[in-house]
């Protein structure tokens, strides 16, 4: 790691860097468990129509707030909808809410970070001051304020979370790009007459991937919590479409009569976020040459 705190390259030991990272990653049992949980989460979200035992939005007023049973494995909610099926379909909203904001943040931060880090000057100063200003407003407050002004919907919540996550990515992308531009191989490329664009795309960009990958895995976790928070407040996924956050919001009113409505959605969020955080930590350790 250099003075900017960015992991740039792995030490030379004869083993290919990619296989070394994978070996380090797969040699850690917590990382393996986390990967299995994340893979199961993605599989459930993608195959929700096949996995869910019941229609997630079909109401059954004869089965209101039923405790877990053979028919309804995790019980039913306040209008008789199957909690398990809503959790399965809610995984889709969470997966989208985790991936799309990170994609938005990456799509904006990579070109801007490259531009800022490689060119410097007044443009770099301007981009960084705006980034500092965005970082000064706490993540969830930005997301809530944006979602409030844009209007409540899952799409707007994802845009809001993506914008709120942008400054962290931008700062990291710019710092990495700046550090890479001082490396010997970039100097060599420059002295060989490579254009700025070619240096940026061929030499700087590929080396920006490791730190951005670590940040992405941690931000997916933060984005899932942020979406659940916004949906909990009524600013994300709109009813009757299922989301873990909105399920928790409804559950608050029935804590005495139907505690299962509150327990399972929270456990799902906790499980996936914990797994993503473990994976992020393991990725950072695997990519860090000092470890």
């Amino acid at each position, binding site marked *: 790691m250099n003075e900017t705190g960015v992991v740039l390259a792995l030490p030379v030991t004869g083993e290919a860097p990619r296989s070394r990272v994978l070996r380090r990653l797969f040699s850690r049992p917590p990382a393996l468990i986390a990967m299995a949980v994340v893979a199961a989460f993605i599989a459930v979200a993608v195959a929700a129509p096949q996995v869910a035992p019941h229609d997630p939005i079909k109401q059954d007023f004869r089965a209101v707030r039923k405790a877990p049973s053979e028919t309804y494995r995790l019980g039913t909610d306040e209008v008789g909808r199957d909690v398990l099926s809503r959790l399965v379909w809610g995984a889709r909203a969470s997966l989208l809410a985790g991936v799309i904001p990170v994609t938005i943040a990456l799509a904006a931060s990579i070109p801007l970070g490259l531009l800022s880090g490689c060119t410097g000057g007044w443009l770099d100063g301007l981009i960084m*001051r*705006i980034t*500092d*200003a*965005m970082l*000064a*407003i*706490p993540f*969830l*407050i*930005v997301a*809530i*304020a*944006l979602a*409030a*002004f*844009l*209007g409540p919907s899952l799409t707007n919540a994802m845009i809001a979370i993506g914008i709120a996550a942008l400054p962290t990515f931008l700062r990291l992308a710019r710092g990495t790009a700046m550090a890479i531009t001082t490396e010997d191989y970039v100097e060599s490329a420059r002295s060989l007459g490579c254009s700025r664009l070619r240096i940026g795309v061929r030499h700087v960009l590929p080396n920006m991937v490791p730190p951005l990958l670590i940040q992405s895995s941690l931000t997916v*976790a933060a984005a899932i*919590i942020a979406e*659940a*928070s916004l949906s*909990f*407040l*009524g*600013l994300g996924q709109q009813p009757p479409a299922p989301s873990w956050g909105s399920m*928790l919001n409804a*559950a*608050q009113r029935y*804590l*005495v009569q139907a*505690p299962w409505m*509150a*327990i399972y*959605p*929270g456990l799902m*969020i*906790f499980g996936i*976020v*914990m797994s993503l*955080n*473990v994976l992020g*930590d393991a990725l950072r350790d695997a990519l860090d040459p000092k470890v």
Partner: protein
Amino acid sequence: MQLGAYVAQRVAVLLPTLFFVSVLIFSLQKLLPGDAAIALAGEESDPVAIAGIRAKYHLDQPMVVQYAIWMGKVLRGDLGESLRNRIPVTELLASKLPVTVELAVASMLIALVIGIPAGVVSAARKGTAVDVAANAVALSGLSVPHFWLGIMLILLFAVRLGWLPASGYVAPWEDLGRNLTTILMPAFVLGTGVAGVMMRHTRGAMLQVLSADYVRTARAKSVPERMVVLKHALRNALIPVITLGAIEFGRLLSGAVLTEQIFAIPGFGKLLVDGVFNRDYAVVQGVVLVSAGLYVFLNLVADILYFLANPRLRGA
């Protein structure tokens, strides 16, 4: 470098940041879909009333002029008027701030009591079961959704055991005992998240310090291990943790949105959410502006504390 010069240098860096913060917050109202005057009018559809709102809020002026007028008012402490309560936003914010500050202080105390000892023990016993367990607990604190933890605590301590009130707030000058019972659960919910951050940072800083030469010298001089850890290592390891504490405190002041909502604590967070649902945009802007201002200010405090605690910076 003298403290005064250092503070002046930091403030000079913060001023452009604050300017851009104000531009971003001002721009928020421009995100309103359609005509802002119609949105601000709410259910009122009379064209004369809408024209009145447009003139009152200077929406018929160019954007730069609108910003200059808004900023001028902000600098005079005028954040507009709440559309719902018909009282100045500044007054509303001033009435909610003590509640949020009390919650943030209580949360920070819980975070310090859990996070720092856990980080010290974890570093001192690196690689043992205690270290693994402390790391797992810290990561859990960072991963658990606070609003869910709040609901679970209500379920256990209010619904099942009946030990604590499920929600509500009593000011300390009205009844200190009831104040503590109402603040305990929300403070614990917020404190656990910060404790996780504190623990990880304390552990990292301790590990770095424990491998330093002067610690090795102290050990070579047969200084008891307890003294090495608590006197020689912890004092230096706490320098970055103090600054982190100031930053986390800033986050707590503004990050209690959902916790305040769940426990019905009438602070900044609840004011923001109520503002969102009442489409009271002046309140939303006011909360975001003050939160960002406090956050920037506490970052400055963190820098100053770091300067004061680190003799190497003072000598630079």
